[in-house]
């Protein structure tokens, strides 16, 4: 399959690959997986006291589109509030990366990872 230039760019130079301490109180971790292709994605956010995402990192085992989708959202999330980050939709990701229809589920994975990371952070905050 031919990948778009943007996918190739993120695939070859992934942004913000890394790991944060998942037990830290200001870190939210989202783990999601796509059984159909066996992709696993971990997205982590570091949130300031006033609810701004200061940093975002990811680690993804999957195809180029899954890696590019997660790489892209880490860039997009930085500096956003949690609410703003949650508004990132899979179609925005798919459009930005020019994903073909068969790869749109990779962007769904990234959107779900955002939700999971935000929810994990909120849960920590709430308790």
């Amino acid at each position: 399959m031919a990948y778009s230039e943007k996918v190739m760019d993120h695939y070859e130079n992934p942004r913000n690959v890394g790991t944060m301490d998942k037990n830290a109180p200001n870190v939210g971790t989202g783990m999601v997986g796509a059984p159909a292709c066996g992709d696993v994605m971990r997205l982590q956010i570091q949130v300031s006291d006033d609810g701004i995402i200061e940093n975002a990192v990811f680690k993804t085992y999957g195809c180029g589109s899954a890696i590019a989708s997660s790489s892209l959202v880490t860039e997009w999330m930085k500096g956003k509030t949690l609410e703003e980050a949650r508004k990132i939709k899979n179609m925005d990701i798919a459009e930005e990366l020019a994903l073909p229809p068969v790869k749109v589920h990779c962007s769904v994975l990234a959107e779900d990872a955002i939700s999971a990371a935000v929810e994990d952070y909120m849960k920590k905050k709430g308790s």
Partner: protein
Amino acid sequence: MSVDLFNKSYFDIFNVPLSYDIDLNKVGEIYLKLQKSVHPDRYANSGDQEKRIAMQQTSLINQAFYTLKDPVSRAQYMLKLKGLDMDSETDTTMDAEFLMEQMEFRESIMEVQDKSDPLSELDSMLAVLGKKMDGLSKDFTNLFVNASYDAAREAVRKMQFIIKAKKEVNELSEKLEDELM
């Protein structure tokens, strides 16, 4: 062979019970017999409609055979017969601990190349994955028998990750073996 084939479940086509633990040898034998009985060559002198039906039957029998032969697609098909949707690509929430474990496992596959004896490391990884698959198969069998279909579906979804990891280990093994030659 009657047209009735089209109204049967894949399990009924091969005359085996609706169960994960089917006798695959028996299925294979019946598959060959069925294939012969509907082979398009047998219908060389028949009318167009008969030929068409024979071809449709052939492809149905093929699909039924390959669905039952593969453990994951067999399990998925069993759940579909119970009305569960297995096709959803957009359902990404899963047991986080399991996913974490999968991620660590994938990491260790990537790191294996730096080990002194990567091939034997990969072999023991395959053994670990084989055990996991066996465990999930047993879980699935029991959950299905007890009609706990949602939990059975979770087990199948986990199997899909194990299969993927297995594929990656095998690919890396082949790559390393090629490099050694």
